[in-house]
Structures are given as C-alpha cells and as structure tokens.
C-alpha cells in the first residue's frame, strides 16, 4: 500500500508514462495502447468459452469495487500536496484519491477502444452490404463516404489549427483556407443544420397530435388537459403578465390579498411544486432503486445479460 501511495504521489518531474508531454513519446504510447488493446481483444476471442464469463466478471467486479470502496473509504479533506499519509486508513484514502483520475483515464481509453470497435463494425457491415448490393446499399455508400470525409477533413482542420497556427490566426474566418471552409461547411453547414431540422420537426407532430389525440374522453384526460393548458398559458409571459396586472387592479396591489392566488404563475407554480416535482422525484427514486439493483446484479455477476459472452 505504501508503494502504491508513493507511486500515486510521484511529482510531475518524474514524468510517468501517463503524463507524457505531447510531441515526446506520447504518440508511441498512444499506438502502444491501441496495439495492446487490439491484441487483448484478439486474445479474448481465443479464450475458451467457459473461461470468458469469469474473465469478464473479474474485470467488472474489480472496476465496480474501486468505486464502491472509494465511496465508502474515509477520504482526506483539504489535503496538502506534500502531506505524507499516516496509518493504513489514511494511506488507503490517499491512494484512492490519487488513483481516481487514473481510473477515469482508463475508462476514457476504453471509450476510445469502443469507438474504434464501433467504426470497425460499421465499416464491416456497410461494406458487405455495398459489395453484395443488398437492399438500400446506396445509403451505405453515403454513410461510409460521409464518415471517411468527415474524419479526414475534421482531422486535417484540427492539425492545421492545433499544430500549424501558433498565432491562432485561424480562429478568424478571414484567415481560413480550403480545408477550414470545408470543415465549416460539413460541421456547421450540414451536420448542425440537419440536427436542428430533425429536432424542429417534432413541433409539427406535437401540433398534429394535440389536435387529433388530446381529447376529453375521461376524467384523467380532462385533468391532464387542464393542467397542460394551464402550464402552456403560464409560459406565455404576455398572458401571465396581463392577468397579474388585472389581479393587481382588483386587489389594489395588496400582496396579502387572497385573490393573488389566482395569478397564473401562482397556480402553475403550485402545480409544478406540489404535483409535478413530487411525481418526478418519486419516479427518479424508483429508477434509482432499479439502477442500484441492476448495478449490484451486474457487479456481482448475477445478471446473465451483464456478463454473458
């Protein structure tokens, strides 16, 4: 434990491999990590089926155990960087606190490997579809071309801005070259606009659904509709304001007058605070308990779906 504490507390001048400066051996370590990841995955595919479950469970358990222990172990508060831990509990706390960012880094590396896996899988499936000329193969071509073009242009733009622009001239559009314009066209001109267009379509469906399906057919539907209309009106600042001015006129601007309760913001606030928020809280509580139960099952290897291979 002492060794681990010391390891976690290495001062920056030791320059451990996880804190390599970009431009030194960082690229070597990145490729080494990718290589180890690929070899690891290939080795896992060679492992006998019976051994896969224990391997997956062991890694799952160790990963989960770190966070569980981190949550339960007493942690140092307002610790000085040069402070030396005393005793087992303090050493453990120091180690856990120092190790947490490294564990988060491991999760980031795994995320990267998963991204690679996703790209590989996408390329494999859609290439096969194109080669075999399966149904809608043309869309697969569009997907593959879009992916490749975006990756190339995106990285090219990134390299130009990050490594070839020491005076940050490319932050201004007037200094852009073809690649920067191409990236801007693809990202801001296409992806982002399509993103906005897709989302804005919801408005049409909501209006259509409001007209066709929002009908008073039961008491529940009536209550729901009344509260929905009330909340919608309260979002319309002009209506809310004019109504409150009207009430002010009736009450003579007396804040203690009973009629102030008829303010739309008061009513909608009451609906939100006493009906909506408690309901959401109850829902979240249920979801939280479910997530906890599911997490425990996966962590302890009881969930077949969690560790099945």
């Amino acid at each position, binding site marked *: 434990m002492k060794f681990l504490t010391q390891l976690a507390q290495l001062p920056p001048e030791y320059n451990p491999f996880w804190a390599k400066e970009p431009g030194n051996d960082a690229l070597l370590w990145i490729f080494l990590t990718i290589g180890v990841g690929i070899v690891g995955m290939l080795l896992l595919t060679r492992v006998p089926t019976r051994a896969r479950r224990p391997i997956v469970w062991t890694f799952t358990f160790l990963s989960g155990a770190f966070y569980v222990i981190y949550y339960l172990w007493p942690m140092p508060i307002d610790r000085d960087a040069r402070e030396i831990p005393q005793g087992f509990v303090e050493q453990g706390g120091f180690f856990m606190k120092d190790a947490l960012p490294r564990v988060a880094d491991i999760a*980031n590396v795994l995320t990267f490997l998963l991204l690679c896996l996703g790209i590989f899988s996408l390329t494999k499936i859609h290439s096969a579809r194109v080669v075999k000329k399966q149904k809608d193969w043309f869309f697969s071509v569009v997907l593959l071309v879009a992916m490749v073009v975006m990756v190339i242009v995106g990285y090219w733009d990134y390299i130009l801005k990050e490594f070839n622009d020491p005076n940050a001239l490319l932050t201004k559009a007037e200094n852009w070259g073809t690649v920067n314009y191409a990236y801007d066209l693809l990202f801001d001109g296409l992806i982002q606009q399509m*993103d906005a267009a897709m989302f804005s379509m919801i408005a049409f469906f909501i209006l259509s659904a409001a007209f066709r399906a929002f009908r008073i057919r039961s008491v529940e539907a009536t209550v729901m509709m009344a509260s929905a209309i009330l909340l919608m009106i309260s979002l319309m600042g002009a209506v809310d304001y004019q109504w409150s001015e009207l009430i002010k006129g009736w009450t003579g601007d007396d804040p203690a007058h009973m009629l102030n309760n008829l303010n739309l913001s008061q009513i909608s606030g009451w609906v939100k605070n006493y009906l*909506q928020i408690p309901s959401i809280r109850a829902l979240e509580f249920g979801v939280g308990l479910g997530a906890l139960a599911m997490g425990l099952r996966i962590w302890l290897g009881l969930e077949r779906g969690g560790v099945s291979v």
Partner: protein
Amino acid sequence: MSTPEKSFWDKAQTLDRRVLYAVLIVLTATSLFFKTEIPVNPDDSSKDLYVSLMTIDPSKTVLIESDWTNSTRGESAGHFEALMRILMFRKVKFVVYSIADAQAPQVARDALMRIQEERKGQGLKEYEPWVDYLDIGYFPNAEGHLQAVGNNIRTAWGGRKERDDTGKERGIFESPVLSNVRVVGDAGLVVVVSASATIDIAVERLYGKVPLAFMVTGVMGPNALPYYQAGQIVGIGVGLKGVYDVEYMMKYGVNYRPDGATKAKVLYKEDSVVVAPVTEGTTMDRGARYFLPLHVALTLMILAIIFGNVAMFASRRKKKEAK
C-alpha cells in the same frame, strides 16, 4: 345505400395534417420577423439564476459545462449567449468544457465567437483566450470525469494544454483563468448549459463542493426543478421562457429602480437584494426574437386542442340528433 353526408364537424376532425403544418409554418415564421419586448414576471428560479450570476465574485473563475448542440439552439443558444454577455460584462473569467456530446465544444466555440464579434462591433473589449477564458473541449465518460473533477480538478484536467498569449503551449493551470483554482470549490460557480441528463451527474458529483446553476431546455426543466426546490442548485433558467426572463432582467435588473422610477420592473423575494441591469452591449436578443413565436405556437396548440374537442362533441351531438 348512400353514405350519409359528413357534417362540418366530422370533416374538421379529419382535417388534413398538412393544413396544420402549413398554419404552423406560416404563423411562427412570420412572427420570427418581429423582435418584441413583452413584459413578463420572471420565474423565481430565473431570478435566482440572474442574481447568482450578477453577484459572483469577479475574481473567481466560472466553470461552464456546455452540453448542447444545434438541435436545441432555440433555447440553449439563447441561454449560452446570455451567460457569455453577463460574464463578459462583469469581467469574470471562465472555462468552457463539455462531457455529453463530442459536437458540443464546436457549437459553444461558434456561439462564443458570435458574441466576440458582436462586442467587437459595439466597441467593447473582446475576451482573450488563455487570459480571460479557456476552451478546453470535450471529456468522454461524463460520470467518471465529473467525479474526477470533484475529487481533484488539478489532476482531472492536468493533461490539458492550451496556447498562451504568446502562442506557446502550456498546461491550463498556468493560465490566469485557472491559476487560482486549486480545488473545484475555488471556482465561483459551475453553470451547466445542457439539453441532456448531465444535470443529474453534475448534482451527483459536484453538489456540496461548488455552487451549481443550470440553464436547461424546456424538456429537461421538470427533471432539473427538484434540485432547485431542494436547494441543491442556486438558480435555473428553463427553456425559452428562462432565456427571455434572463434577458429581461439583463435589461431591467432585479429590485432595481432607475432614477425617477417609483417601482422596480422585476421584484425579488428579498427586498434588500438590488441587482443592476447589464449596462453594456446587447441585452435582449435571441429570447426576445423567439418569445413571440413561442406565444404564437402555444396559442396555436391550445386552439388546436380546443377546436379538436369542440369538433368531437359537436359531431357526437349531430349524430345523436340524427338518430
């Protein structure tokens, strides 16, 4: 046997949806041309948000978690731009980072550049990267990352480098923006501008360590309001109404009475709190442009619901009478 002729109400119930779509497009698009100032009573949560932003210690850095893309720009862009304007007016240094969507940093960067251009056009000081703000990009693994930030921000962000004002690449904690941040609690405020569930993670991992404020979409509002009610966040702007509320307070302040005025436009729960308006640059912009279309769209929605129900009851009555 001839089929009975359909009444007006029967036909109304089966109205072609394209008619509804056309009405929606025409009315909302037309109303977009009018940038109007509509008097409002800002929500209490928006008032708390504005008061928090306007009373942060300017020597403290604000951390902005920008997790929105253009799919929610109608709301989130307004939130983000208003936040930028307030912080730049108050000369507060800030850091922008994202944890939910890899596209989010570029979208935030574009919005920041828009505000910079606007300030340049108005003859106001532009914020300088490295000196006044840092844009440190995307961090994957939201849950693990925010936990690491809460645990030790210096190690969680220790690997990030940015160019300083001379063009040399240096660790971000050497920047004047973060040099005074040793632990996350040294930041003045963490503001989450989000259209996703990262608000939950922010509360789970950072609550109690640093004050939190949210600027969220209308859809995420109900999820976020329990945190406000429980006092876990200092303020929250919800949806387009939230954007307009903040812009309105930027123009008129809170409990603020200009010379000669007998009453403040926006009253606050505490009489002793007086927050001045933002007196430089633009105050009412995106919220003011979109607030009228919001009114139009909501009115249309309410009318559609009422008309649909009236048609249903009228049609039923007709059928009963025919029998």
